[in-house]
Structure formats: structure tokens, C-alpha cells
């Protein structure tokens, strides 16, 4: 019986080109896997997540009518007849700390200005300075919600 010769379409691919394509595909896949691993590696957050709440101490430390700058938040804590409120001092444009001015707030980096309520008065910032939630706990301590 003569040797069977298979003449299907697969024979169109030579052994050499099959090996070449396989090698390239495997190398590409390995490269992609390695790249993915590298991105995950680099994306790991080494530092702990930032705090979301801040204990400001007894509420009595901030008398009515006071405006207290909290530089490490950064925020401005305001106590009026209505109660406590806080406004973030992080410029909504690119994150510099805005400085209180007679007209509200001004950013030293790119010239954005905000009114006393935090609404943008002059660009490039488009979003208002966010209000931060302030609450008193059972012991009368002020808790500032940073996020």
C-alpha cells in the first residue's frame, strides 16, 4: 500500500513559516503578559490611602464668627450663626492651594479666582471649590470629612 499523502490546505504552510509564526506569537504573548505584570507592579499604591476624616478637636475651640485656616487639609473652617461649614482650598484647576483674599480666594499658580462661597469668578478653574462636610460627634468634637 503506497504511503498516504495528505493534501489538505494545511500543507500550504511550510514547517519553517509555521515555526516562525508560532515563535513570534509566543514571544508577543509573553511580552504582553510581562507588560501587564509590569503595569500592575508599578500601579501598586505603596503609600496608605489618604485619610477621609479629620478630628478637629472640641467644637468650642472655634467660636462663632471665627474663620480658621486648616493648612494641612487644606480647608477653611467657618463658624456662623447657621453652624459650621468648611470649604476646600484645593484649586479645582490643577491643585495648588488657593489663598484667601478680600474678594474670596485666589490661586497663585494660574490666576483662578473664587468668590467667598467658592464659585469660580475668573478662569482657568471651572468648578467651584468643594464644600466639606463638618459634623459634631456625641462628645462635642468636630469631625471634618475630607473627601
Amino acid at each position: 500500500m503506497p504511503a498516504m499523502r495528505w493534501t489538505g490546505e494545511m500543507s500550504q504552510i511550510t514547517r519553517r513559516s509555521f515555526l516562525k509564526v508560532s515563535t513570534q506569537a509566543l514571544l508577543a504573548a509573553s511580552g504582553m503578559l510581562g507588560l501587564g505584570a509590569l503595569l500592575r507592579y508599578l500601579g501598586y499604591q505603596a503609600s496608605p490611602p489618604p485619610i477621609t476624616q479629620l478630628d478637629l478637636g472640641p467644637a468650642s475651640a472655634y467660636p462663632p464668627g471665627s474663620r480658621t485656616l486648616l493648612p494641612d487639609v487644606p480647608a477653611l473652617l467657618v463658624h456662623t450663626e447657621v453652624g459650621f461649614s468648611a470649604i476646600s482650598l484645593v484649586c479645582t484647576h490643577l491643585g495648588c492651594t488657593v489663598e484667601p483674599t478680600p474678594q474670596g480666594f485666589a490661586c497663585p499658580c494660574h490666576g483662578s479666582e473664587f468668590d467667598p462661597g467658592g464659585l469660580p469668578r475668573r478662569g482657568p478653574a471651572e468648578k467651584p471649590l468643594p464644600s466639606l462636610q463638618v459634623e459634631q460627634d456625641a462628645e462635642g468634637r468636630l469631625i471634618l470629612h475630607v473627601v
Partner: protein
Amino acid sequence: MRPNFYLHLHPPTIPAAQARWRYTLGAGGTAVFLAFVLLVTGALEMFFYIPTPGEAALSVQMLTYTVPFGGLLRNLHFWAAQWLLVVSAVHLVRVVFTGAYAPPRRFNYLLGLALFVLVILFDFTGYILRWDQGIQWALVVGTNLVKSIPLLGEAFYQILVGGAQIGAATLIRFYAWHVFGLTLLGAGVLFWHIFRVRRDGGIAIPPPALRTQRERIFHFELVRREIAAMVWVGSALLLVSIFVPAPIAPAITEITAAASETHAPWFFLWVQQMLQWGDPFLWGVLAPLVVLLALALIPYALPQPAPDELGRWFPKSNRMAQVLLAALVGLVILLTLLAIGSKV
């Protein structure tokens, strides 16, 4: 004799036209020399610099004020870095204004442009390593610009900063990039760039058949000129470093507290000026990338310089490229002046 890289760069003779000061300005060679100065002074700075948020600015102060010759060393590193940026820019302008990027040198032009970008990244990361009140906003703005990139920004930001906000992980990453990552990349591309100069037939001049000047100089004369340039630039660098101190500012107390310096580093003032116009991604990321893309396309998209016009300034055949580059340079200078003039 065994072939080596030194001999590759210094053939027995070269056409005199390839080594004329008024043609090359010696800018490329000077850039290599400055890079070498930066490598040595930078390595020495590593003996005192401590890359942690609490210690960085203090260790820079110690290096500057108490270590013997530490201030001089730091000034040398600082001035060499600023000059490298200027000299690289001059080199780029020279190459475009003389049409030297013409084939077969188009690819080497791109390598040079990549080196220019690396120099900017080196200068920025090095500036951040001071970690004092002078760099605070530049760091905040620079990293937030990365965050402003649609879709990928958040991931890039985390890889760059090492967390959800700036901290110790950020400083060590900038340090790693500055002393290792960029150095490795830079050394690789620099060697490739210099290697290609000779491979592409040396500094651009007309092909042999079209040359009018037959004069050649010996290897010895080329080396003499290189040493002369090093002595002049080295002396000027030393003189400036003795008398003009590198900037320094008080240590950061809180990363968010008001900082003393609200200007970007001088080479990014033009970007800071554009950022006042609105959308951070558009003006802070896309606009600079468009400038870079325009530079990269010069050898590919504009009329080619004529071979017989190579080796001299302002050939007629590449007028378009000259006008484009002059416009870009003028724009960057104008924006920089506006930023210096404005109060913010």
C-alpha cells in the same frame, strides 16, 4: 588596530567643512561634555542626598552649606543641567536652520529629539528632588497634568506618584527615574545618536561630487578642537558655579501649605502661561505634544534640503522648516516672557 568607539568617532581625516565652529557651533559635542559633567557631579551628590520627604531638603542644605566643596558641586550640577538644555536646543536649531536633518540623517534627527525630551525630563525630575518650597507647586501641577489625560491619566498618575497623593513614594520614584531610569535610557540613546553621526557620513555637508572645498583636517586637529571646547565650556561653568548659587528654598512643612515659589521652572514657564487659558489637558498636555510632533515631522513632511546646499546656514531649499522652527521658538520665548511678566 582593533576598531573601537573612539576611533569610530575620530577617523584619520575628515573634511574641514564638517568641523567649522561657525557651522556646527560645537553644540552637540558641548552637550556630550555637559552630560559627562552631570554624570560625575550627580554621582558625587548621591553620597549626601537622602531621598525621603523629611530629609531631602535638609540633606540638600547640608550638601550646599556644610560639606566641603558641596555647594560648588551642586552649583556645577545645576548649571551644567541648565546649560545642557540650552545647548541641546541650540543644537536642534542649528540642525534645522542648516537643513542637516536631510536623508540619510532623518532617523538620527529623531534620536536627537528623543534626547532633547530626556534632557527636559532629567531637568524636571532633578528640580523636584530638592523637595523644598520652591518646587512644591511644580510637582502638584505637573502630576495633576498627567492625571488630566482622558482614560489613562489616573493610571499614569498612580504609576508616577506611587499612591493617591504625593508622598514618600513619589520622591523615591522621581529619584529612581532621575538617577537610574533616565540615565539608562539617555546613555543608550546618546551612544546610538553619536554612533549614527559617523554612520550617516559624519556632520552634514554636500556629497563628494558636489563639494567645492577639498580641504581636510587630521584626527589630531579634531581632538584639539574638542579639547579646546571642553576647556572653554568647563572654565565658564566653573566660573559661574563659583559665583552664582543654584536656587534653594526652605524645607516643606506641609505639602499643601502656601509655598514660596509659584512660578514653574524656567523651561516650563511657557506651559504655565498657556495653562491660564483654560482646559489643563488641552493646554498643558496636548499643546506641548503638538509642538513636539511638529518638530518630529520637519524632516518627513516639509520640502527636503538640497544636497548641494548642505553644510551652510539657511539653505533656500528648506525655507519652510526654518520658518516653522523660528515661529515655534518665537512662540515659546514670547509665552515665557509673558509668564515672567505676569504676577502669578
